């Protein structure tokens, strides 16, 4: 049976997984610049190609910026997830003390510490929600960019047909960009899945603790 990945591992893994997206987006940006150079050489034969390449170039740069933000947010999320685990561990240990020393003369003096931990737990859970939602939104932005990029790549193929002797080059670049888009989409999908798993765990833990 597959062991469930701890939530703090999932969140720490997101940054590593999405680092590849950054590299692919960078390649995509280079491919687009090549396409732009060819389109310039082709002149009027590839007139419709230039605005398309400009658009995809902007999108790849934007994707790299989003990945950088995701990197920062996922590291912060992992830090919060680990802290959440530590706070949970402290609470469990204090509960053990309450159980094993229920007859101790000063057992009630521990209550203030337990209340403080409970408050800290709620604060950590709220931070987890905040950072995981922010990450989810950032990943969703990348996925949307890639969906648009796919449509644009289809359009670029139509434009390439009119480019006569430049057609083969432009089509090859369109293929490269399409492959890049697919790779990015797959990686983001996997990261979204990972994040969703972590969020589900936190929701389950939160309900469990709330009982």
């Amino acid at each position, binding site marked *: 049976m597959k062991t469930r990945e701890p939530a703090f591992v999932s969140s720490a893994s997101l940054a590593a997984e999405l680092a590849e997206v950054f590299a692919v987006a960078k390649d995509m940006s280079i491919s687009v610049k090549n396409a732009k150079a060819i389109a310039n050489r082709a002149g009027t034969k590839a007139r419709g190609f230039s605005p398309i390449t400009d658009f995809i170039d902007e999108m790849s740069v934007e994707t790299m910026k989003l990945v950088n933000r995701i990197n920062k947010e996922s590291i912060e999320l992992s830090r919060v997830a680990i802290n959440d685990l530590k706070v949970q561990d*402290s609470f469990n*240990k204090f509960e*053990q*003390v309450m159980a*094993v*020393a229920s007859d101790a*003369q000063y057992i009630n*003096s*521990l209550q203030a*510490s337990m209340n403080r931990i409970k408050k800290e737990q709620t604060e950590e859970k709220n931070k987890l929600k905040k950072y995981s939602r922010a990450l989810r939104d950032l990943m969703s932005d990348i996925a949307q960019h890639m969906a648009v990029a796919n449509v644009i790549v289809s359009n670029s193929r139509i434009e390439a047909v009119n480019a006569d002797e430049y057609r083969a080059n432009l089509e090859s670049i369109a293929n490269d960009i399409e492959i890049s888009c697919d790779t990015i989409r797959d990686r983001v999908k996997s990261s979204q899945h990972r994040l969703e798993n972590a969020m589900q765990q936190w929701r389950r833990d939160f309900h469990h603790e709330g009982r």
Partner: protein
Amino acid sequence: MKAVNIYDKRHQWIMFGRDPEKPEGIIDTNQYLVKTHDRAIVLDPGGIEIFSSMLGSLLHHVSIDQITDLFASHQDPDIISSLGLWDQALPKAKLHSPWLWESFIRHFGLNNIEYVPVPDEGGNVDLGSIKLELIPAHYLHSSGNLHVYDPQAKILMSGDVGAALESPGADMFVDDFDSHVDKMKMFHQRWMPSNKAKNDWVNRVRKLEIEIMAPQHGRLFKGDNVQRFLDWFEALEVGVAV
């Protein structure tokens, strides 16, 4: 966890150890509580694995608010790896420990408790009605190491010096010193690296009036057995692994 009152006058010393709930494979440790009418300090509070048992035992003797201070003789996990949990339990407390280990001990988790770095020459902990002396014991075994001396109770908490590897459920005090030597010899020869540091410590400690010497592992020494131990330790060759 067993709790034994080893001094009970205007203030108290209580030793905790021989924990039957302790997970297998981890060394048994002695923890000490020094308690006045309104303050308390826990000496070498122990590892993370015994925290619940230790805190549960403490609460039979002292309220959580009364524990104002912690002491860690050095940085080892069996001494203070529970710090992250004490940090949650005693957010206003102070931890007295060698300055040398501050940036290392903080790895155990220190967000609330104040770290009081004790200089190499030692210092003291003022608990209001009593003052405990922090005695240098560097290289015994840790390179930054302190012991605690209570001049009123005449008790020396001697950390790893005097420690013995015992079977579970051993008595609290050494009764037959000669037969106890076998349980201490390897520990001291292997863990203590320096004859010079050892003899320096013996000379320092001989000047103190000691009724009870209380190590962090194994049995405690009382009365004449304290002097027997000092004589034995002075003559022992340590740092023998090289």
